[in-house]
């Protein structure tokens, strides 16, 4: 029952990864903060360039296509599209390096 030879799933079957299927509310809070941090960087760049009368193509595309944190649906903040998943959604924490990459939009209808 106890000790080194207890029958637990990782010891019996070998590999068992315990990644929860959804984010905790604290992970969600930090995710929102990260989204807002990226938004603030984008707005800082935009304002600084606007003062100089300059534009940046990549920045314009981002502003047109990407929703800000406030505009995003909770569904898009914490989950992402995956064609292999049941109901086509998986937690965003399954995305490699998910805290340091931007993943905001999903295919329409999913």
């Amino acid at each position, binding site marked *: 029952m106890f000790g080194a030879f207890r029958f637990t799933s990782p010891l019996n079957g070998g590999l068992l990864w315990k990644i929860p299927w959804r984010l905790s509310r604290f992970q969600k809070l930090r995710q929102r903060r*990260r989204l807002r*941090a*990226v938004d603030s*960087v*984008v707005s*800082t*760049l935009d*304002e*600084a*360039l606007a*003062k*100089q009368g*300059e*534009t*940046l193509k*990549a*920045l314009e595309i*981002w502003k047109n296509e990407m929703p800000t944190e406030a505009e995003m649906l909770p569904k898009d903040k914490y989950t992402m599209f995956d064609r292999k998943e049941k109901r086509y959604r998986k937690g965003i924490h399954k995305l490699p*390096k998910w*805290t*340091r*990459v*931007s993943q905001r939009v999903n295919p329409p209808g999913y």
Partner: protein
Amino acid sequence: MSASAYFRITLHRSAIGLPQRTRGVLMALGLRRRQQTVFHPVEPQFAGMIFKVKELVRVETVDKPLSKAELKEERKPDPGFYLESRAAVPTPVVEESAEVRL
């Protein structure tokens, strides 16, 4: 408005495990370690570089770049005390002997 504005860029998140291109952008910006701060003029060229690494950095706009010493001074915690300056010493009366020594 002001012709000489600068981006104050601080590397907040490490680029370990990120693509070589992302790390190359950080190198080009002069960011080698976390919490390092660099200054670059407000130009589309630098804005584009910052935009590439927007998830990793914190950016502000400032009027002039700070020197290394000034950045260090910013980080210094409040010592919790201050030194009273010494009361002014009354100027000694110039005597003949003093003049002789000079």
